[in-house]
């Protein structure tokens, strides 16, 4: 019985309550935005996981229509992949210039990133238009429905990333590297690199494996 009474509130109030209940060495994060944005990215990851699962289930249901081997031009996909990979490294350079507080260099690298992203979207739209023109639109087969859903969702993400990028370039031009702009640029950095990670899954799982016999 004496053990129980030692754990009762009366026993605890005798000691320093903060030392009793809180780990003093654990800081509260001063800026939760980056962690919050990371959690958003993880939930976005689950959206893509569902779309990948759909493609994995339906990706071979051609309904006597064209298959991936008939439709995909791997040279175009390779070009697209290199554009996105290059845009990742140029965004990285922009972040390095931000660490050195160089506004003009940061804006230049952001501009290059935006151009590469726009090139990626342009090629993807050309590919989609070409496929739809050939009669291989999303309504042709389950394979094509899941293909357009997955790759289109990724393309939409990149498009919104470019819009965000343009807005941030305007913000940085106007206000410079204030704390808010640094935080926003870091969030977009995570978003942009995350889309490149998703694209690794897309080109491997959809394009390369779709072309295999």
């Amino acid at each position: 019985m004496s053990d129980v009474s030692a754990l009762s509130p009366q026993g605890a109030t005798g000691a320093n309550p903060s030392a009793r209940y809180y780990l003093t060495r654990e800081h509260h994060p001063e800026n939760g935005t980056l962690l919050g944005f990371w959690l958003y990215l993880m939930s976005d990851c689950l959206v893509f996981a569902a779309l990948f699962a759909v493609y994995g289930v339906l990706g071979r249901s051609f309904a006597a229509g064209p298959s991936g081997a008939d439709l995909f031009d791997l040279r175009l996909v390779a070009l697209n992949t290199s554009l996105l990979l290059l845009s990742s490294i140029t965004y990285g350079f922009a972040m390095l210039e931000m660490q050195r507080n160089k506004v003009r260099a940061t804006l230049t690298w952001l501009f290059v990133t935006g151009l590469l992203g726009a090139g990626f979207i342009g090629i993807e739209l050309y590919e989609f238009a070409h496929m739809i023109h050939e009669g291989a639109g999303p309504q042709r087969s389950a394979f094509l429905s899941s293909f357009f859903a997955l790759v289109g969702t990724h393309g939409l993400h990149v498009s919104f990333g470019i819009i965000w990028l343009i807005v941030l370039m305007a913000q940085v031009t106007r206000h410079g590297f204030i704390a808010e702009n640094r935080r926003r640029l870091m969030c977009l950095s995570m978003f942009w690199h995350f889309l490149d990670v998703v694209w690794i899954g897309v080109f491997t799982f959809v394009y390369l494996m779709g072309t295999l016999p």
Partner: protein
Amino acid sequence: MSTHTGTPDNATDHGAHDDHHHGHDDSAPHATFKGYMTGFVLSVILTAIPFWMVMGNVFEKPSTTALVILGFAAVQIVVHMIYFLHMNAKIEHGWSMLALIFTVVVVGITLTGSLWVMYHMNHNMMPGMMQDMHKVP
């Protein structure tokens, strides 16, 4: 330059105590040129090899190619996580890593579960199965 005004902490405090000190506003890790270039070169290599394998028909069996390029994709995702997203167990006191591990587990269950269940369902719903069903007592 007016760029320093917003973050006096950040501009002046980077000195001898830049690790394990959370006094300044950015809890994000410090990116380096070397880190980005390492990640980029590795990514180029890890992207080029799968494309070469598929476009050059390197392996006889498609299933071998599929397994190998999936392996390359997994490695490349880890490379991007480390060198571009600066992932490690320390940032945000480990909460980022915890969220990532949770997501990886859920994604793994979603993908393997869907493929597994739907494969067996397709298999069991084949037209040939219906005749066998009558023989089952």
